[in-house]
């Protein structure tokens, strides 16, 4: 319990530059419950971090919606495919 509270306090004391690093990291991997709680408390009173986090998450979500196109969409044209195959056979 003491460790948990210490971590929350540590996060609250970090400068906002460090908070932005954690907001980004949070999109890649789950943070500890104490670290996440420290961040949640911080954004209640920090307008800069609150906006930054919201914008980062919005970009993350929009990028995902744009990025689902690799499995569908225009296939490689047959002519291009054949040219590539011919060249790699010549090369090796």
């Amino acid at each position, binding site marked *: 319990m003491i460790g948990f509270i210490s971590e929350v306090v540590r996060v609250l004391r970090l400068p906002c530059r460090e908070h932005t690093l954690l907001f980004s990291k949070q999109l*890649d991997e789950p943070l500890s419950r104490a670290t996440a709680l420290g961040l949640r408390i911080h954004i209640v009173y920090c307008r800069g971090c609150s906006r930054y986090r919201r914008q980062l998450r919005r*970009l993350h979500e929009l990028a995902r919606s744009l990025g689902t196109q690799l499995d569908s969409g225009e296939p*490689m044209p047959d002519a291009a495919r054949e040219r590539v195959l011919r060249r790699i056979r010549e090369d090796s």
Partner: protein
Amino acid sequence: MVDENVESSAEQSAGDAGSVAPRTLPAARVVIERLFEEHGDVLWRFAMARTRSREVAEEVVQETLVAAIRAHGQFSGLSSARTWLLGIAAHKISDHFRATRREARFSGAPQADGEESGVDRGMFDEAGMWARIPGDWGLGGEESAERAEVLGALRACIEELPPSMSEVIWLREFQGMPAEEVCKALGLTATNLWTRMHRARNALRACVEKSLRGGKDSA
């Protein structure tokens, strides 16, 4: 045009797949041709989305396969093969943009891991507190209009990022590739990826904000 980084990354990834690499180039070529049959369209769409040029995309696909053959890759699972090929393609696309000197436009941006980030310069004061609070994007307003506007800015801004940033953004954010796989594909440690992602997201956020404000810097 096969650089040593790609070869090394490719060989490492092939090794990670836990299979025995073919001993000869022709044998490797047969394996890679099979992978091309399976993943060629994905490679093509990836290269097209990044380069917006059929000619360059074709060149990227070809160079990706040549690098893969030379790395004597062979895979036990299709998903790892896709990751591996996309990683090589990402390097090839970066090479292309470097060659066209796009990177030079971002001479102020850090290129090597471990350097102090330049993309948040001006955002914070010396104590690391906000010197310039992020602008209001009007995220509480009309959802569809705001979404379209930010989406448009995002599409434009991804093209503006230097290659070292756009490759991680493409694989991680746009393709949703797990962080572990991005590390394997690009030969990065988890810490390097985390740092690079943060810089790239910062650069993307700043670019989108500038775009939404009509190119004016936020006050």
